[in-house]
């Protein structure tokens, strides 16, 4: 019999998942659903920080990394907003409340809400499903309102129907103290009286002052032009954060596929400040 102690924690190996049960599903947009996940015996599966991710898996189908969209201040459950775009996500979209999946995590770093971002004025810029990781931060900030300065939220989507979490945005965020919400959609649409236009151009129109720290997430092309826009407004690289997504398998920086240069997105990221990104090779 083995006398070593190397097995003591093996059930906690990062590659071994926990079982999670889906306790709520909200259809956000035609192709985005938000899943509420709990431990089967109730309560949360784990604690996380805003910006962290978790691996969701449907056994036999596939496994992928998703950002946790609920705030850590939510003590009851975790939420994942998932857009239907591949094999796994299609499968997840067919699940019902009460179905089980496996979850492992949380993985990666987080937005520095307790350090660098503290006391700062925050500007959140999101496009489409890119709101998912930022929502975690926004709710965290709103729940710890006194620790942060002003909050501006610029959120755009293809159409009014594709705006994720619209209800929460309009009822909770828009009414919160010292929070400005700016919504935009790509094309004119009946029944929409808000702004029309792409996020980067709206950003320039809004002409934000540079006393803010920007947190950006969205499709790569949007990030690229938002970055240009922010630079034109006078923002420096140190004032801009974003979060990445690449193919991942292990989630702990060992399987070797999500690297950009010597940085592993799953371990050293997914949150990067733009001055860090500038040092990375252009392969993302």
């Amino acid at each position: 019999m083995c006398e070593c102690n190397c097995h003591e924690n093996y059930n906690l190996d990062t590659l071994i998942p926990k079982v999670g049960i889906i306790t709520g599903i909200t259809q956000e947009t035609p192709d985005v659903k938000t899943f509420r996940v709990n431990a089967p015996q109730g309560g949360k599966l784990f604690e996380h920080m805003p910006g962290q991710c978790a691996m969701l898996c449907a056994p036999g189908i596939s496994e992928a990394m998703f950002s946790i969209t609920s705030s850590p201040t939510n003590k009851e459950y975790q939420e994942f907003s998932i857009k239907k775009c591949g094999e796994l996500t299609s499968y997840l979209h067919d699940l019902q409340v009460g179905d089980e999946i496996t979850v492992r995590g949380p993985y990666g770093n987080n937005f520095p809400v307790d350090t660098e971002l503290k006391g700062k004025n925050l500007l959140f810029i999101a496009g489409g499903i890119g709101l998912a990781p930022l929502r975690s931060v926004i709710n965290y900030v709103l729940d710890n309102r006194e620790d942060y300065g002003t909050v501006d939220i610029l959120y755009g989507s293809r159409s009014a129907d594709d705006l994720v979490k619209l209800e929460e945005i309009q009822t909770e965020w828009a009414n919160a103290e010292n929070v400005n919400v700016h919504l935009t959609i790509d094309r004119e649409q009946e029944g929409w009286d808000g702004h029309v236009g792409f996020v980067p151009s709206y950003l320039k129109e809004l002409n934000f002052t540079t006393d803010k720290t920007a947190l950006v997430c969205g499709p790569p092309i949007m990030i690229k032009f938002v970055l240009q826009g922010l630079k034109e407004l006078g923002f420096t690289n140190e004032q801009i954060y974003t979060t990445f997504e690449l193919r991942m398998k292990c989630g702990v920086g060992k399987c070797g596929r999500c690297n950009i240069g010597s940085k592993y997105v799953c371990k050293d990221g997914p949150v990067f400040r733009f001055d860090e990104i500038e040092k990375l090779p252009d392969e993302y």
Partner: protein
Amino acid sequence: MYKIAKENLSALFRKISETMGLYLPISSAGQTNFGAWAEDADVDLTTLKTVKSAKDTFFPQSENLYTCTTEDKKITVTPEKLQEEDFVVFGMKGCDVQGIEVLDRVFLSEPVDSFYAARRNHGTIVALACNEPENSCFCNVFGIDCADPKGIADVATWDMGDFLYWNPITEKGEKLTAYLSDLFEGADDTAVDELKNSIHNIVDKLPYSDLSLEGWGGDALDEKFNSPIWEELYKPCLACGTCTFVCPTCQCYDIKDYNTGNGVQRYRCWDSCMYSDFTMMAHGNNRTSQMQRYRQRFMHKLVYYPANNDGVFSCVGCGRCVDKCPSSLNIVKVIKAFSKEAK
């Protein structure tokens, strides 16, 4: 220092396998690879390099992680058992030993990979010096002395013709030596020193022994990454995974599911950054061209890995890629192409 007559080696192997596992180079269907010892196994200690490196013994090409069974929507996760039995890896060469050290820095860094860690805890490495290093060898470039394998090896041995000389290095090695002590007789170092000298003489004459790594390392990122040389170098690459699978330091893996009919078995298996689907996901792929994938492999070995690991290279100069690439591409050609450019 101890020694054992070569004809008693099978007694040694038998004794080891009485209480623990034993992996050593075994010839099967014309090729030598590390495999489990059995009474009728064709042990081959003369072939310089096994086709696959010895990393298989600690990081197998494929291993199960857990099994998921679903009943009435309820999922049960049953993790695979970790290595519990002690085992010995016999006959690892200096380069392979260093290869395991390279893997250690990946798998034993936080968060520790328990599957790998359990194997490392239970494994004892008996290294064997290379009597006649080959033309594709360049381990000396990475500071490895193939005449005196040390590093994380627990025991070093030398093939001296009629005798195998045996020198325990670590506590684990002492323990194994004590267990086998009946089979050994005492020996002095002089003969081994002579052999070491003659090996060093061969190493000095080998064509790759003066390869220079100047310019490589963790700081070389931009200059190397953006070099136009890659466009030239990658062209003959067939995008197979031979180099990665024979490499002692390549550690990339894939995690896959297999539906056995009684549950979904999740296993991990070696993967290769040379494969086109390596980084592919539903929304896109950040390394779409073979040039990018080719560059990734060598940048990882010579730049990214050293950047994360105190300047240690993720290549041990075993020369397996040199021997095995179907298109005769290899890390030496990459290093040479860059030093030529620098001139």
